C-alpha cells in the first residue's frame, strides 16, 4: 500500500519534538507507546530467563532417575511457577510489547488510544510477578498444584502462598484486560484515513481478535481464582463435594479460560509470520481474506473445545464426542493458514535472513505441534496420551517453537526499525541454528517417552525413560545457553552497534511502519498519513 506523508515526517522537525524525560522517570511515567513497548519486551525477556531457570531445575532433577537435587514438593513448585511465569510473564507480555510498538506504526496512529492506561497496565506486571515469585521464599513454598491449579489440590491441600498467587493472577488479569481494551480502542478509532478494515496488516487483525479473546476469558480466570480463594479461606464449597460443590466444575471453568488462552498465545504469532513471509518472499500474502476469516474461526471455535483437556474426568459419551469433533474442526482453519503461508512462498523470490529463518522454523515446528494436537483430539487415543509427556511435547512445540519462535522472528524483523541499526546477521544465524537444533533435542524425545508411558509432573521415573531424559536435559541446557546469543544480539543493537539500517530495512517490506525513519522517531504520525 502506498502512503502520502503530510509534512510530519521530516526527520529534523521530529528531533525538535523529542523532548523525552530523562532517567528513570522517562520509564516510570511514560505514556509513549514505544517506550512502553520496550518495557514490555524487556520485562518479557527477563521473565523468559527466570522461567527458563526454573525449567532447568526441572531438567536437572530429571537428568537421571532417583532424587538428586530437590524435594518432590519443591519440584512441583518449579513446574507450577515455570508454567505461570512463561505463560503470563514471558509470552503474553512479549506480544503486548510488540503490539504497543507496532500497532500504532502499522495503522498510522500517533500513539495508543489510552496512553495512561497503557502505563498502568505495564507497571502492574512487575508488581504481580514480584508477588508471585516472592512465594518461592515463603514457608510452605510457592503454589505447587501445577499452572492449572486443579482443586482441591490448590484449595484444601495447598500452602498459604495460595492467597498471594490469587492476588498475583488478579493483577495479571487486570493488566491484560486493560491492555486488550487499549488495543481494541486504538484499532477501532485511530486508523489513518484510508486504512480500511481489509487493508489492516494481519498482525493488527490477529491482535484485534486476540484482544477480544482476552476480554472474554480473563474475567473467567479471575472468577475461578476467586473461588479458589474463598474455598480455601472463607468456607465456601465451590469445588468441594462434601459441601455440595464439584471439583470437576473447577476444570470446566479453568479450561473455558484456558483454551482461548492457548490461542491468545498463538494468534499474534500468526500475524507476525504473515508479515515476515511476504517480505522475504517478495510476494503479497496469499489469501489475505481467508487468513482473517481463519483467525476469527479459530477464535470462535476456541470457546467450544475446552472439554478436550478433560476427557478422563468422566464426561458423558455425547459430550466427549462433541468436544472431539469441535477440536478436530480447528485443524481446518489452522491448516488454511499453513497452506496460505506455503502458497505465499510458492514462486516467490526468497532470501533467508534470520527473521525468515525463524518464520520457516515456526511453520514446520508449529505444524508438528498442530498435528500432535490433532492426535490428542482423538478421544480414545487421548486416554493414553492425557497427562503424559506427549502432551508436554505437544504444547511446547506450539508454545516454544510456535509462540516464542514467532516472537523472536518479530524481534529480529523489527529490531532495525526500533534501534536504527542492523543486528549482526552472523550472530543471529548462529543463534537460530543453535536454537533450532537444541530445541528439538529438548522437546522431540518427549513424544517418545510420553507415548511409552511417562506421566508429566513427576520428579522421578522408571528406568526405561532414563536415556531420553538425559538427552532432553542436555538439549534444555543448550537451548537456554543459545538464548544468551539472542540477548547479546539485542543488546548490541540497543547500544547502537552495527550497520545503519535504512528506512525500509528489508527489500520486500511493505506497510506504514517502513515509511518512517529508522530508528523510529519518539513521536510518529502526529499528522496521520493517508493510505491509498
Amino acid at each position, binding site marked *: 500500500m502506498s502512503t502520502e506523508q503530510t509534512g510530519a515526517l521530516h526527520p529534523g522537525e521530529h528531533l525538535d519534538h523529542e523532548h523525552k524525560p530523562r532517567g528513570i522517570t522517562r520509564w516510570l511515567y511514560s505514556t509513549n507507546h514505544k517506550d512502553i513497548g520496550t518495557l514490555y519486551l524487556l520485562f518479557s525477556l527477563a521473565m523468559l530467563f527466570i522461567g527458563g531457570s526454573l525449567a532447568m531445575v526441572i531438567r536437572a532433577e530429571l537428568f537421571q532417575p532417583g532424587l538428586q537435587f530437590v524435594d*518432590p514438593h519443591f519440584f512441583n513448585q518449579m513446574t507450577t511457577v515455570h508454567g505461570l511465569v512463561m505463560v503470563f510473564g514471558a509470552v503474553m507480555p512479549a506480544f503486548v510489547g510488540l503490539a504497543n510498538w507496532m500497532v500504532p506504526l502499522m495503522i498510522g496512529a500517533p500513539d495508543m488510544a489510552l496512553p495512561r492506561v497503557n502505563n498502568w497496565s505495564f507497571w502492574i506486571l512487575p508488581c504481580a510477578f514480584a508477588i508471585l515469585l516472592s512465594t518461592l521464599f515463603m514457608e510452605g513454598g510457592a503454589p505447587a498444584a*501445577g499452572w492449572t491449579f486443579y482443586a482441591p*489440590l490448590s484449595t484444601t491441600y495447598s500452602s498459604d502462598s495460595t492467597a498471594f498467587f490469587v492476588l498475583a493472577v488478579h493483577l495479571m488479569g487486570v493488566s491484560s484486560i486493560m491492555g486488550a481494551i487499549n488495543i481494541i480502542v486504538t484499532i477501532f478509532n485511530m486508523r489513518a484515513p484510508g486504512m480500511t478494515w481489509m487493508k489492516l496488516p494481519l498482525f493488527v487483525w490477529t491482535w484485534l481478535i486476540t484482544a477480544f479473546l482476552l476480554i472474554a476469558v480473563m474475567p473467567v480466570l479471575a472468577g475461578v481464582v476467586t473461588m479458589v480463594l474463598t474455598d480455601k479461606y472463607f468456607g465456601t464449597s465451590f469445588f468441594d463435594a462434601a459441601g455440595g460443590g464439584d471439583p470437576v466444575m473447577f476444570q470446566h471453568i479453568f479450561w473455558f479460560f484456558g483454551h482461548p488462552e492457548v490461542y491468545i498465545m498463538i494468534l499474534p504469532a500468526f500475524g507476525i509470520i504473515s508479515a515476515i513471509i511476504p517480505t522475504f518472499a517478495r510476494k503479497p500474502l496469499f489469501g489475505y481474506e481467508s487468513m482473517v476469516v481463519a483467525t476469527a474461526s479459530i477464535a470462535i471455535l476456541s470457546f467450544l473445545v475446552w472439554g478436550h483437556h478433560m476427557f478422563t474426568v468422566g464426561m458423558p459419551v455425547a459430550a466427549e464426542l462433541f468436544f*472431539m469433533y469441535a477440536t478436530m474442526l480447528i485443524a481446518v482453519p489452522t*491448516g488454511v493458514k499453513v497452506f496460505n503461508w506455503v*502458497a505465499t512462498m510458492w514462486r516467490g523470490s526468497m532470501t533467508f535472513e534470520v527473521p525468515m529463518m525463524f518464520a520457516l522454523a515456526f511453520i514446520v515446528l508449529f505444524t508438528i505441534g498442530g498435528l500432535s494436537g490433532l492426535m490428542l483430539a*482423538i478421544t480414545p*487415543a487421548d486416554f493414553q496420551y492425557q497427562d503424559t509427556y506427549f502432551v508436554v511435547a505437544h504444547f511446547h512445540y506450539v508454545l516454544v517453537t510456535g509462540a516464542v519462535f514467532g516472537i523472536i522472528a518479530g524481534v529480529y524483523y523489527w529490531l532495525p526499525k526500533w534501534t536504527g541499526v542492523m543486528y549482526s546477521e552472523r550472530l543471529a544465524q548462529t543463534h537460530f541454528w543453535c536454537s533450532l537444533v537444541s530445541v528439538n533435542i529438548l522437546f522431540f524425545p518427549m513424544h517418545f517417552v510420553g507415548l511409552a508411558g511417562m506421566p508429566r509432573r513427576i520428579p522421578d*521415573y522408571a528406568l526405561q525413560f532414563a536415556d531420553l531424559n538425559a538427552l532432553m536435559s542436555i538439549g534444555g541446557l543448550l537451548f537456554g545457553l543459545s538464548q544468551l546469543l539472542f540477548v547479546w544480539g539485542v543488546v548490541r543493537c540497543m547500544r547502537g552497534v552495527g550497520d545503519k539500517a535504512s528506512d525500509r530495512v528489508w527489500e520486500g517490506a511493505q506497510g506504514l511502519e517502513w515509511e518512517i525513519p529508522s530508528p523510529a522517531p519518539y513521536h510518529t504520525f502526529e499528522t496521520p498519513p493517508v493510505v491509498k
Partner: protein
Amino acid sequence: MRHHILSALYSARYSRLCLGGLFMFLCQAAIAQESRYNMTRGVTEISQRVYGLHMTIFYICVVIAIIVFGLMFWSIVRHRKSAGAVPAQFHGSMKIELLWTAIPVVILVVMAIPATQALIAMEDASESDLTVLVTGSQWKWHYKYLDYPIEYFSVLATPRAQISNEAEKDALYLLEVDKPLVIPTGKKVRFLLTADDVIHSWWVPDFAIKKDAIPGFINETWTRVDKPGLYYGKCAELCGRDHGFMPVAVEVKSEADFEAWAAEQVALQEAARTADAAATPMSMDELMTLGEKVYGTACAVCHQASGEGLPGVFPGLKGSAMVTADIPGHIRIVVFGKAGTAMQAFARQLSTSELAAVITYERNAWGNDTGDMVQPADVAAAIQGGE
C-alpha cells in the same frame, strides 16, 4: 579361491538372504524397542483398537506433513532469489482455497468414524462380571472387591534407599507395589473410581484405561484381559508431593487361580481381624522397632524420617505439642485423621498393634523422649469410642 568366495557372497540368493535377515533383524529390534518409544499395543481388544487408531492418525499426519513440508522445501530450493527467481504476484485463488478447506474436512471425517466407534465401545461398562472399587488417596491406591469381602491398600514397594540413590535401582524401580490388584482372565471387570482427598488418575497403559479418581464422585470404566500377567501403570494426575510415587500394578490370573487367591485373601483378612482383636501388650522395644518400620512406610512421606516435616506444608512432629503432651488427642488424630488436611484416617490402613507402635515411636523418637507407651488396647478403645 578369493574370487570364488566373492562370487558366493554376491550371489543373488545370498544377498537376498542377507537383506531378508537384516530386515528381520531391524523389525525385531524395532518391535523390541517399540514399547520404549511408542504407545503400547496392550493386551485387551480395546487397547489394540486404540493402538490401531493412534497409528492410523499418526500415519495420516506423517503423510500431510510430508506433502506440506515437501512443497515448502521445494519452494525454498527453487524459488530463491539467489537462484534468480522472479516473484510472481498472485495472491489468492478461490478454487484452490476451497479445495484445501474441503480436503481436510474429508480427512477428518475419515478419522472421526473409527474414533467414534472405539469411544462408544470403551464407555460401555454394562454387563460386567466383577466390580472393584478403586480409591485414590495421597499416595496409595485402595482396592475393594464388591463381590468378595476383600479390600486392601496397594503402595509403592521400591525402597526409599533406591529413590535417594543409596542403593542400586532394580528393574521394576518405581513400578512395583506391595500388593497388586488381582483380576481374573476372560471376565469383564468394572472399575468404580473415587478418591479420598485430591484428584488422582488410575492409568494402566496395557488396558488403555485412564480415568480420574475424583473425591466425592464415582467414575466408571472397565476391561477384559485374556492374557495372564503383571501389568504396570501410574497415577496420571498431579496429586501432591508424591504424585510420582504411586504406581498401579494389576495381576491378571486365570479364573481358577483367581478364585484360589480370593479364598486365601478372605481367610487371611479374617485371621488378621482376629489377631488384631486379640493383640497383646508389647514391650517398649517391640513398640519402638515396629513403630519405626510403620513410620517409615506410612508417615515419613509427609512428616519426613527426621520428624521435622516440611514447614508450611506438613507439620513437624519433633518437639510438637501434639505428640508430646496429650496422649488421647495424639491417638485420635492418627486414628481418625484431621478433616480438611492431608492427615488421613489410619484406622483403615493399619492394625491396632501398628497404630500403637507408631504412636509410641512418635512420642519417643527424635528426642521427644516422653517415655509414654501406647498399647493396642488403648487404640482399640479409641476406635470403639469413635470420633
